[in-house]
């Protein structure tokens, strides 16, 4: 049996405040990484995919 995957625990106290600070910064930097080309390639991969 493979190693069990951990549940994601609720973030509390210091972990919560650090996480909140980081995601606030990310919101300020929203859409700062241009991923359009990669999404376009992934569309082509999905179009070629077999189910």
């Amino acid at each position: 049996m493979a190693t069990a995957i951990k549940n994601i625990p609720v973030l509390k106290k210091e972990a919560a405040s650090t996480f909140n600070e980081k995601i606030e910064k990310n919101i300020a930097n929203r859409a700062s990484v241009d991923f359009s080309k990669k999404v376009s390639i992934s569309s082509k991969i999905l179009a070629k995919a077999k189910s």
Partner: protein
Amino acid sequence: MGFLLEKCTFRPYNQEILDSCEPFDCGNSDLNGFFSKDVIKYTSELLGKSYCFTLDENPKVIVCAFTVSNDSIKVQTLPNSRKKKVTKRIPREKETRSYPSVLIGRLGVNKNFGRLGVGSDLMDFIKSWFVHPGNKTGCRFIVVDSYNTPKPLLYYTNNGFEPLFSTEEQEKEAMNLPLDKPLKTRLLYFDLILLKIEEQTE
């Protein structure tokens, strides 16, 4: 993602793959065991869905594979100061905010396809998949429970992931794990809000 687009085909990792392909070998016995023994049961119990890329010139070869499932990051915070004033006579309740996420449970690259950038291409594909206009549900974060060893941790951090907990001790405390025992895996996340796709610019 050139190699995955031009040389491979994306497929669900199902019984047909198990029956028709050579055993998947990413050089990690735990992952190999999952993709050869546990994957079908995991899928049938609706705990996650597994996918792979097979090589077009020899479809018996699995180039890379991964498993994803729905999850969330829950963050407990104290009410803000204004709310504290309003509710000062009432015992303060903690608020929990939940962010929709996708959990990468397993991910491996065939050891014969190392150094081709397949791992990073695969991660770009997964990120693209969850910000793709065709994605039916909202998803803010990709979370992974990585083996706590240098190579996988470097792979995820090089691909923009950050630890969910600043220190191993903090993670052990949150998981109620003994502080004197080694942490086998670490939770990391990637914030999809950073990615720009065409639709957001219009």
